[in-house]
């Protein structure tokens, strides 16, 4: 699986990437928002940009969407250079902003019709496409209701529907589930994955929700304008030291000796339990159990979270940026800081 290649894997230049970024730098008067980013996202991938606000993820997404010009470096989306042909890029991307950008006085269908017209969807295809995207996000029965009457989750779903209406090659989502309750968030993710499954769309999203990042195929953790880690959620978590196995037997001391002798790893005695750190806990447990001569009373495998990864890589918890996180990326770069 090319898209979930190992951490060390180099992007293959022969792959026709959905997004390719090289040496990207964005400097404002005194602030360097993006300090040299290299990145390649394969077609059909769900790629997450994870980091606190002010880390540079919003500026990067704004450059990719042609809303901001890079100071140095190059970026292409759907194979098209964002600096040289911004209009061609815009025609091939869909955007879902953190803040609503719907016309609340128009109906769902009218909002979609406007979008279809602006993106040049032929009149003969409009109706069918609008019906299809409305069905995808389960808003068919509200198609002719004025958007003003919609809940926050419905508005976001409508925006996702609008974002894919013109069959873009890449869908950008900036903090797509910000401010939604967990149930609505999970449902939106179901929709996004269904859409990806159905259309092969590439999804590029920013988030500072760790849980959300777990749903991505690959994640880049960005801090102070640089990518500090890049890989699948599992790869990133394995950077912390893999899984933690907590084991309890009738004779922990003897078990400890057997583990060291037969499996070559060191366990730590922690009260009534033994703690073992291994790269791949799921694969290690069967070996562990067959290696031991005594019955195992309990065994649990705990996996490090992305919070642990971020903390380890940056020395800070991601939530510190939350106050800024309430800003949309448009406002964020209007204030000249990504």
């Amino acid at each position, binding site marked *: 699986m090319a898209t979930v290649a190992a951490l060390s894997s180099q992007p293959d230049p022969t792959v026709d990437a959905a997004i390719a970024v090289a040496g990207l730098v964005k400097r404002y008067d005194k602030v360097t928002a993006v300090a040299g980013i290299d990145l390649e996202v394969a077609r*059909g991938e769900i790629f997450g940009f994870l980091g606190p606000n002010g880390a540079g993820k919003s500026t990067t997404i704004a450059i990719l969407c042609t*809303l901001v010009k890079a100071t140095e470096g190059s970026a292409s989306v759907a194979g098209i250079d964002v600096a040289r042909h911004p*209009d061609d890029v815009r025609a091939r991307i869909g955007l879902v902003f953190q803040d609503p950008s719907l016309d609340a006085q128009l109906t769902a269908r009218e909002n979609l019709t406007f979008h279809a017209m602006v993106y*040049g969807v032929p009149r003969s295809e409009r109706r069918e496409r609008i019906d299809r995207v409305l069905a995808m996000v389960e808003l068919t029965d509200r198609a002719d209701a004025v958007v003003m009457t919609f809940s926050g989750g419905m508005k976001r779903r409508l925006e996702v529907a609008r974002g894919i209406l013109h069959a*873009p090659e890449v869908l950008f989502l900036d903090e797509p589930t910000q401010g939604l309750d967990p149930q609505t968030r999970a449902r939106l993710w179901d929709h996004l994955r269904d859409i990806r499954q159905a259309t092969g769309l590439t999804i590029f999203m920013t988030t500072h929700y760790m849980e959300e990042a777990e749903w991505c195929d690959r994640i880049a953790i960005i801090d102070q304008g640089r990518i500090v880690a890049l890989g699948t959620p599992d790869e990133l978590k394995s950077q912390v030291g893999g899984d933690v196995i907590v084991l309890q037997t009738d004779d922990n001391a003897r078990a400890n000796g057997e583990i060291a002798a037969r499996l070559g790893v060191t366990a730590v005695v922690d009260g009534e339990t033994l703690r073992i750190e291994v790269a791949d806990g799921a694969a290690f447990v069967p070996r562990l159990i067959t290696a031991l001569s005594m019955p195992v009373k309990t065994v649990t495998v705990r996996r490090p979270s992305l919070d642990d990864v971020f903390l380890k890589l940056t020395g800070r918890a991601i939530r510190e940026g939350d106050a800024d996180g309430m800003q949309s990326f448009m406002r964020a770069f209007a204030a000249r800081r990504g």
Partner: protein
Amino acid sequence: MVTQTTEPVATPTEPAAAPKKASHVRVSTAQAVYIIWYRDVLRYGRDRTRLVTSLAQPLLYLLIFGVGLSSSIGRGALGGSGAPSSFSYIQFMYPGIIGMAVLFTAIFSAMSVVWDREFGFMREILVAPISRSAVALGKALGGATQATIQGLVMLVFAPIIGVHLSVISVIEVIPLLFVLAFSLSCFGVAVSARMRTMQGFQVMMNFLMMPMFFLSGSLFPLSGLPAWMTVLTRFDPVAYGIAPVRSAVLGGTGLPQPFVDRVAAVTIGGHAVPLLLDVAILLAFGMVMLGVAMRSFRHRD
């Protein structure tokens, strides 16, 4: 519990699953103008209360101001010697109030640019693969359409005011109102494109719109004014919109044409500005403002 496997969520990397090429074509500038215009008109049509309430202010001026001043000024007092005795202030003022309805509507519909920005829809427009200039022009035409309709609706009060409109004067008035509406709409969009907040726009507009209204000759003739005011009125583009409208509205009433011309026309250095020059001045102002508006849109975000 143990397994959060690395099962990759069926990433379609095979060419077969690649996104199908979008079948759309890029919209032309003319189409883009139409789409932006269409949305504004759609919203205007939906908002029926606005059509009614926006008539309230001109009506208030017309009925209270007009009736009040007509009584105190008396008939035949306007237009100097040779004024027909049947001609009252309210009849003089009526075309000016039509112009007022156009002015206010044009400016307030330009507020939708600020409104769209505040409620986020402007982002949907700005990231679309359409020309920014088309957005500015579409907005200006949308406002112009609304303002023209509001101005035309004012014509239904003609019988009450004692102005008898001929078909010809109505036909003349439509394009004249549109030119006024379009120029003022361009001005409104030029201002609103630079405004960040609704309050800012309203303050700005009160500083610009009210003087433009008062100096336009809507409420009083532009002749025989103090020198400083004469100069100011000649710099008010609205004056060149009111004059032809007044001429057309009053022209069909049976009043003597020389009198109508005298009471309606803007004079510069003692010479009456002819109709075509009025229109040209107004359009020139509109074009400059449209240029400013397009520039602001292009350089935004």
